[in-house]
Structures are given as C-alpha cells and as structure tokens.
C-alpha cells in the first residue's frame, strides 16, 4: 500500500492529483502523480538521500530540478534491464517504475564505501597516479575498477527501438522556455519552418517555476496559448523530452528524443539558422560540507514548489549572492516552508526585498556566508559567519542555525555548451560574473538567459527580435511579434561564491566527481595551472555534469590561486554530447546484422545447401570450408587441398575484384599504375601485376587481362575492390585527365567459378561448350570466350593454387546453375573453401597482399627488382624505389620457412630473432604458416632482414615465450619448375 506523500502540497503545480502513479524506490512502494519527474516524486515522499557520491560515497540528495542534476542520478529498471545514470530530474515518472540508488553497498543509507570518505585525506587528486604505480598498476587495477564508475550497465540483449531520422528546417530553436517560445512565435510569424526542441517533458522552462504576467496572462495559460498559436501556424514542430546534444559544422545539430516510451530517436537536423534559447544554469555556492542531502539550488527549490506542488524540506535556509533567490525564499515561505534566514553575501540589499522579507518575518543576514553545515545522513544545521569589509575573510564570531535544507544561489551562468561546440568563443563578463558569447562562425543567434538576459522582460524582448532575425537571415521577411510583461525584477549579483573559511577538503566544487577546493589548490600547487590541465588532473567538470555546475567555480578558484583575472584563465572547450547518451542512440539500427550488411555470393543458397561453413572476409560472407568434406575443420580443409592437388576442386571466387578499363589510352594508363609492363601485353593474354602507392609500398596485386585491343579487365583482391576502383579514378581524374578511358567496377556483375587441379581440363571438356580448353589453345595466362553450359562465359587460365586452373566468369545470375552443372558432371570434383585456397597458395609461395606484406613492404622486398629495373617508363611509386633506403639489402625480404623439427607449431606472427649480441632483436616475422597436406609438414612465408641472401640458413623463431629453430627456404615449396601450372 502506497504511503501518503508527506511533502506534497494540497494544491498547485503542473501535476494531476487525480492520476496517482505507483512506483518503487529501493524496494519501498511509493506514490507520485502524473506530471511528476522521478525526483519530484521522491521529494514528495520525503526521501532525502537518493544516491552515494562517486569517490567518497557520501550521501547525496536531489540537487536541482534540471539537466544539471548531480545527486539524483539513478538506476531505472525497465523490461529491458537496468539503465544507469538516469537523470531523475528530467525523467517523467511512469506507473510501475522500479528505481534504485547507485554507487552504494549494501544500501544507500548504510554504505560501506563511506570509509573512503572518513579517510578522504589519503585520496586527494592524483592519488592513483602517484600511489598505485608501485610495483605495478596491474596490482590495483581490478579493485579500483570495481569501485569506480556510476551504476552498472545492463547486460544481455537491448530491445529498445533505436531509430535515426533526418530533419530539415529554416530555424531550429533550442530550448522552449520563455525565450524559446517567444523566438518561435516571431520566427513562425515570419513564415519560417521552425523546430522548437525542449529537453524537459513539457515546455515553459523558467516560467514553470515563477509567478509572472505575460500578455495579461499567468504563466500556465500563456504557455498554453502560445503552444496553440504555434500549432495553428502549421509550420512549427514542437519536440519535448528532446535534448539537443551536438552542434556540428554547417549547422547540423543532433537531437536525442526520449518522447516515445520504449523508443529512442536520434535526429540529425540541418537548419539554416539556430537560435540558442538554452537558458542559464544556477551556480552553487562553495562552503564546507555543501553537499549534504537537503542542499539544493534555489531556483530548483522554487521549481519543486511551483511546478510539482512539493515542499523540498520543512525548513530551508536561503543563501545567495544576488536578488533572484529572494523570489525563491518568498515562494517557499508562502507554500509553508519555514525560512529561518536569508544569508546574503552583499552588504546592501534592495529596500523592496528587505520590506517583503520583513512582511513575512524572514530575517536577512547581510554580508554573511555559510561556513559549514552539520548533520548525519541529512542536514540539521548550518553555521553562518560574517564577512570582513573586503569580503576576503570571515570574522571570528559565527552562529549555527537549524534547518533541514538550504536553497542556494550563486547567480546564473548561460548554458553555452552548444555555442562552444559550434566553434564559438566565450568571454567572461565581470559584471554578471559569468561567461557570455563572443564570436561564432556559424549561423547562430543566442537569446534570453543564454545571452545573459536573466530578467524575464529583457529575455522576452530580446527573443522576439532574435526569432524574427533568424527567419530574416533564412530569407524570410522579419515579422517580430509583440509580447508585454508586467514583471519587474532585479539581479544585482556580487561575484562571491566561495566561502573564505573552512576546511577546503570538504568544500565541493564538482559534486559528481567529488572534486573539492583542496583538489584545485593541489593542482595549482603542482603547476597544473592551465585550465585544460587542471580539468584533467582534478577531473573537475569531466563527469556526467560536463561542467554545468562546476566549471565556473573551478575557474574562479584557479584564477584566485594563480593571481589572474578569470578572463585570462579562460574556459575549457565543450564537446558533444551535451548530456550522456546510451551508445545505442548513437548506433541506431547499425548493429548486429545491420552493422555491416553482408555481401552474399551469387550462389549463396547452393553453398548453404552444401553445408558450407561461412565466415566474413571483408564485407563478403564466403565458405571457409565445407563440413561434408571431413569430420572437423582441419580434416575438411586437408581433404579439399588434396582434392585440388590430386583431382580437381571447385572454388567460388565471385568476390574477386573486377574492374574494366576501356578506351584508346587504357593500356598507357595501366602501364602507369602497375609495376609490370602492360604495354607489351597482347590481346587475349593475361599478366600478373603489383600496384604500389607513391611511396613504393605494395597496395594490391592481381592479374590484368587484355580482353580487346582497348579493353582491359583488372582483378584485385576481394577486400580491395572498392579502394582500387577509387584509386584508379583518382589518378585518372586528378593526374592524367587527358588520357581517354573509362573505369567501370564490375565485381558484382560476374560469378567467378574456379576449377583447379590435374583433372580440371578433362572435367571442362565434358561440358557442352564451344571453348577449346586444350593446352595449345588455352595456355597458362591466356583467355577465351564462348558459350559454356548454355551461357556466355569468359574463361581465364590463371592460378592461385599452383595447379592447372580455369576461372570461368558468367553473368552473376547464372552462377548457381553453372556450379550445379559442373558438380553433377564429375564425381572427382569437390567444392573447396577459402581456407584450402590459402593453404594451396602458401605451398606455391604466392603472395597474399596484406598478410605477407604490410605498410613497409615495397616491390623490391618481394622479388620484383628485375621487373622494376627493366621497365623504362614511369609508374606510381617508381621514384620512391630509387631511394637508397628502398634499395638497401638490409630490408625485410620475402622468404619461405620450415621448422627444423617438423612437429613444431610454426605460427604467423612469430618473430625471427637475433641470437648474437646482448639484446635479442626481431629481424622480421612469419607472415603466413600452415600445415601442408601435400608436403606433410608445416611451412610458412615470412619477411626477414636480408632474406634473399639467407636461403638455407637456420634461424631462431620466437613465439609466445618459446624459441625454436627454423630453416629459411625458397618461398615456392611446391612445383618450383611450374610443370603442373603449365600442364
């Protein structure tokens, strides 16, 4: 049975008392109302301690009523697992919510981690950098990782619907407080397409927490009337529960939209103009033990009363350095919260405010600050001291005042995170003691409190103009609306936020990361005096908060410690995201099968039916081996290799990159691209070639076939097909545009079926075809076209296995039929997967670019010196091969390798190490290794220093802590004379 909401007011607020909502907090069954946030419902139920702090595990309560929340970050259980770090102040309460405190064990009211607080002097800034390095960080890491972090991530499948959308508009207005609403009215009135985005679940912003009269209406009816006008205009989209999180180049902004339950939307908005009506965040005061539950920002305390009909505490001391907190004090008082005193750092207070306080019987303590607070678990009293005349010290006399809460105001700081993200610069305004906009290259206007207009009439007056101006900049006629308001107000801030007395180790600056004044002092003492260094060393402003309540005080402190004005200390750069987002929001639907859509072979279904075991190779899903060929993976691969060596194998090579280059200058062009001479290649013939980048490094290899006089077909490695297509285009368009040719990537238009092995010719000859497969007509490295098994086909006699081999290319749609036809024609033909092909090519010593070569391997390192020397004309990378370093005999060169003990498990990635000299040094690596079923031993390829000259030498191989001996051989282990290849 839900308990009575003991701190709920009988009436008032934007909540619906006729719609109770049951929820659970740390196992307690509680009740709130529709319109509540989680935080307001907890306060209504008199819950003061809601979580534990990050480092010292101190009890923390609800601190604010908005995005700047530091205490009320809670774990909410949904059908989809636990979601940590939910901002309870921004999240609407819903029926049946299960909410838990985080960062505490065993419970939020008794947390063993609090021992870290009692021993806090041991854990000052930088403690782990200094302490946990001996003997090694690893000794401590596990324990520290267990203690660190806020909340726990849910494990298991996330069923939330994450969607990405695009939106285009003329004017995007960020924030639907009074400024945003006024700007929207003017922009819409001017005819612009407007998007108005509000992070809270209802619009109104600061109007929801204050008494005012606008156009003769109270705030609530004015908001309702404004929304109706905007809706009627037909060109305004109002988004609530939608936080603008990022501001990127050329006016692209992103919005995290939580407005649909169970669905998270991420909008990418491209807009002509932006109006930032993001308001300002109230800044906390810094005094000893300023983090106890019950201490909150004054405007937030007022919001709980006005907007949610909740008394945050029974009695609240009000502490301020400006006039704005007086409205909070009076409002709290008028709703039954006892105000023991208003503690004001200023000596001179406006008579009107003094009079209103007197009427309510609230004593004002001018020229005073809070020095300390006391209480166990929750606040019980505060100690007040009087400031000296220069406000630099506190006079000795002080007194304790009983209170259960403190509403504090250190003035406001405009929320300019997005402006900073947009590349805007900020400057410090001494009079308002806050940062304001300076310059920004993007199309952005800033209006209202975000622009330092902290009083409602100023904010409204500015915003109606800003909205119209934004529309005007977007090409519409400026038609600002008129808004009248009768509210008078004053601000009169005195820039003292930091109490000059008390233990600085207990004066919180960053509530979220438990950074205190002492930490900032220590950073300055250790010469971390640049604001960016101080931030990273102390971690002030680095947590979920992102500086919203900590930045200004930390900068003020640093300025004082380094004797510089704040404007010279500067501020840190804000970066996306404005508010933490679940990774799923950013990923959207690009996960699981949609992360990288698989490319399937034309005959995929056939491979599936043949028990192919698939693996992703780049974007392609290809048969690794066929389960039917052996009892396990190794045996199947072995059987497939032997079938190619003894009879014949069928390999689906469709992903092979295929690019056609056509035109009168095609040969000239390719001659500039390949290391090999293409000009001497005759029609109907094929040549193997290497491609280099300008630095002489191998980027791809493959064969180049001359199909017709002016038509060439290039093969690239499967993974490189797109890249090489782009590479050719870039060289043609940017360097040699005068060459007449066209480049067409045709990879997916063809199915490529390779038949390799001594029986391959005999098998092909048994198929109905007009192609002559004889050795005389179709020798190695030549091609023929004709009809094969009833379809048009091109046959290239090329080999990656070292056996006689035919590549049959047919239109992709015929791939499956031709494969079925071939398999049915011979009992000796086995399907083979890509792993068998890789073993076959290793036996033959054929290069696998990217495996045997890396970003340091040039053409000379793989034995191309003769070809390079012979080629007279220029090609990409040629000049680089002439550098002394590229020609050095000391380089790593391609070699074959076999273990001296043939049972030794040679692995790719093992190092060749020197054995002479004091220190062992790597001389290169084993780049490919496999068991060769043909040779019945383990063989490999590698890149070894001076490798060409070391054939026959025995070297030491280091692998996973062991060393063993291996022999350097020629890379070609199988059929070095090429008799089988040319059969």
């Amino acid at each position, binding site marked *: 049975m839900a308990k009575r909401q003991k701190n709920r007011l009988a009436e008032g607020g934007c909540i619906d008392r006729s719609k109770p909502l049951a929820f659970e907090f740390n196992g307690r069954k509680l009740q709130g109302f529709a319109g509540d946030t989680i935080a307001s419902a907890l306060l209504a139920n008199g819950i003061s301690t809601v979580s534990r702090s990050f480092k010292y595990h101190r009890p923390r309560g609800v601190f604010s009523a908005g995005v700047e929340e530091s205490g009320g970050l809670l774990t909410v259980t949904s059908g989809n697992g636990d979601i940590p770090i939910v901002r309870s102040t921004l999240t609407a309460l819903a029926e049946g919510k299960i909410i838990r405190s985080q960062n505490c064990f065993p419970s939020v009211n008794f947390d063993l981690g609090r021992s870290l607080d009692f021993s806090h002097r041991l854990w000052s800034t930088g403690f782990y950098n200094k302490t946990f390095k001996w003997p090694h960080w690893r000794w401590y890491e596990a324990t520290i990782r267990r203690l660190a972090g806020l909340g726990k991530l849910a494990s298991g499948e996330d069923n939330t619907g994450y969607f990405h959308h695009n939106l285009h508009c003329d004017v995007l207005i960020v924030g639907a407080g009074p400024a945003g609403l006024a700007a929207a009215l003017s922009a819409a009135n001017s005819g612009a397409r407007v998007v108005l985005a509000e992070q809270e679940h209802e619009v109104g912003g600061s109007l929801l927490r204050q008494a005012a009269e606008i156009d003769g209406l109270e705030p609530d009816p004015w908001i309702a009337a404004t929304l109706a006008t905007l809706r009627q205009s037909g060109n305004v989209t109002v988004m609530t529960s939608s936080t603008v999180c990022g501001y990127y*180049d*050329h006016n692209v902004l992103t919005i995290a939209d939580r407005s649909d339950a169970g669905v998270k939307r991420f909008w990418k908005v491209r807009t002509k103009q932006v109006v930032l009506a993001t308001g300002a965040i109230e800044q906390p005061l810094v005094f000893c033990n300023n983090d106890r539950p019950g201490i909150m920002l004054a405007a937030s305390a007022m919001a709980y009363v006005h907007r949610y009909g909740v008394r945050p505490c029974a009695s609240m001391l009000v502490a301020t350095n400006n006039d704005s907190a007086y409205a909070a004090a009076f409002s709290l008082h008028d709703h039954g919260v006892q105000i023991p005193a208003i503690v004001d750092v200023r000596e001179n207070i406006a008579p009107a405010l003094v009079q209103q306080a007197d009427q309510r019987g609230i004593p004002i303590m001018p020229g005073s600050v809070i020095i300390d607070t006391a209480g166990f678990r929750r606040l019980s009293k505060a100690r007040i001291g009087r400031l000296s005349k220069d406000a630099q010290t506190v006079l000795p006399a002080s007194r304790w005042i009983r209170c259960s809460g403190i509403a504090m105001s250190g003035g406001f700081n405009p929320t300019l995170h997005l402006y900073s993200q947009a590349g805007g610069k900020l400057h410090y305004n001494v009079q308002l003691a806050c940062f304001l906009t300076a310059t920004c290259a993007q199309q952005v206007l800033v209006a209202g409190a975000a622009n330092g207009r902290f009083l409602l009439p100023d904010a409204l007056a500015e915003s109606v103009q800003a909205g119209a101006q934004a529309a005007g900049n977007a090409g519409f006629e400026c038609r600002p609306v008129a808004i009248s308001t009768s509210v008078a107000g004053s601000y009169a801030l005195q820039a003292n936020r930091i109490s000059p007395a008390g233990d600085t180790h207990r004066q919180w600056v960053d509530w979220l990361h438990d950074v205190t004044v002492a930490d900032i002092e220590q950073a300055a003492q250790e010469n971390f005096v640049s604001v960016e260094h101080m931030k990273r060393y102390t971690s002030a402003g680095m947590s979920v908060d992102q500086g919203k309540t900590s930045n200004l005080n930390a900068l003020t402190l640093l300025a004082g410690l380094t004797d510089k004005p704040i404007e010279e200390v500067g501020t840190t750069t804000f970066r996306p995201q404005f508010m933490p987002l679940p990774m799923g929001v950013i990923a959207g639907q690009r996960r699981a099968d949609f992360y990288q859509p698989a490319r399937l072979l034309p005959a995929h279904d056939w491979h599936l039916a043949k028990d192919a075991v698939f693996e992703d190779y780049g974007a392609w899903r290809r048969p690794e081996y066929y389960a039917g060929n052996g009892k396990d993976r190794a045996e199947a691969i072995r059987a497939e290799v032997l079938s190619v060596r003894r009879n014949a194998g069928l390999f689906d090579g469709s992903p092979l990159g295929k690019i056609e280059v056509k035109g009168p200058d095609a040969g000239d062009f390719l001659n500039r691209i390949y290391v090999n001479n293409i000009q001497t290649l005759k029609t109907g013939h094929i040549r193997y070639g290497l491609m280099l980048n300008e630095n002489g490094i191998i980027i791809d290899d493959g064969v180049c076939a001359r199909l017709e006089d002016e038509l060439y077909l290039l093969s690239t490695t499967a993974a490189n097909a797109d890249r090489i297509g*782009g590479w050719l285009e870039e060289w043609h*368009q*940017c*360097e040699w545009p005068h060459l007449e040719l066209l480049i067409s990537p045709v990879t997916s238009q063809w199915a490529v079926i390779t038949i390799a092995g001594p029986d391959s010719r005999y098998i092909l000859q048994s198929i109905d075809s007009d192609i002559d497969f004889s050795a005389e007509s179709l020798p190695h490295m030549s091609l023929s076209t004709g009809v094969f098994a009833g379809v048009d086909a091109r046959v290239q006699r090329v080999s990656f296995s070292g056996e006689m081999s035919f590549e049959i290319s047919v239109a992709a749609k015929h791939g499956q039929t031709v494969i079925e036809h071939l398999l049915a024609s011979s009992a000796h033909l086995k399907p083979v997967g890509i792993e068998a092909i890789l073993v076959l090519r290793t036996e033959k010593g054929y290069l696998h670019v990217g495996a045997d070569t890396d970003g340091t391997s040039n053409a000379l390192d793989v034995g191309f010196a003769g070809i390079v020397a012979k080629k007279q004309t220029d090609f990409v990378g040629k*000049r680089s091969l002439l550098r002394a370093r590229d020609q050095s005999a000391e380089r790593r060169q391609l070699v074959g390798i076999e273990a001296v003990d043939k049972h030794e498990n040679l692995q790719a990635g093992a190092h060749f190490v020197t054995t002479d000299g004091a220190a062992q040094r790597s001389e290169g690596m084993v780049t490919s290794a496999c068991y060769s079923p043909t040779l019945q031993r383990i063989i490999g390829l590698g890149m070894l220093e001076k490798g060409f000259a070391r054939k026959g030498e025995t070297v030491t191989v280091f692998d996973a802590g062991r060393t063993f001996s291996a022999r350097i051989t020629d890379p070609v282990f199988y059929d070095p004379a090429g008799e089988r290849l040319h059969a």
Partner: protein
Amino acid sequence: MLQITCPYCGCRDETEYSFGGESHVSRPAPDAGDAEWSDYLFNRSNPRGIHYERWQHRFGCGRWFNIARDTVSHEIYATYEMGDARPDLPGKADN
C-alpha cells in the same frame, strides 16, 4: 557536417563525399632529386585559413573537384573543377 556543392550535382551532405587532401600539388618528374620527391610525398601546407583541397563525390557522380575551405570556420568559399586554377577570393585573406 559540411555541406558541399558538387560542381556537377549541386549541394549535398559531406557523407556523400570523400576527402582527398591538398590540391594543386604537382607531381615531380621521375628524375626529381630526393629532396624534391620527399617534399612532394610528405609535406603539405596545412594552413590556418584558406585551404585548397580536393574532394570526390564518391557516392554521387564520382567526379573529383576542388574546394577552397577555411580551416578555422569551415566556410567553403568556392568549388571548382579539377585542372582549374585557384580562384581569386578577394576579402577572404588568410587568417
């Protein structure tokens, strides 16, 4: 995210394009000295201000073209075809 006007297709989002580095870098003849060749390979102007660079409309028409972009503000002052000379940008002095 930049919005780039392809000289052939019009205004599109950056996601349709790929960046190709500084433009107007001339490739030395094959007999160039080591210093000249290494300057071509490794050194670029990297200015604060106007940068002349080449982009490809990779997921559009496939054409390469040039852009004059301000590296501070990301403002794009001009787009022009491959082979065209750097445009005059009066009043857009280097920052």
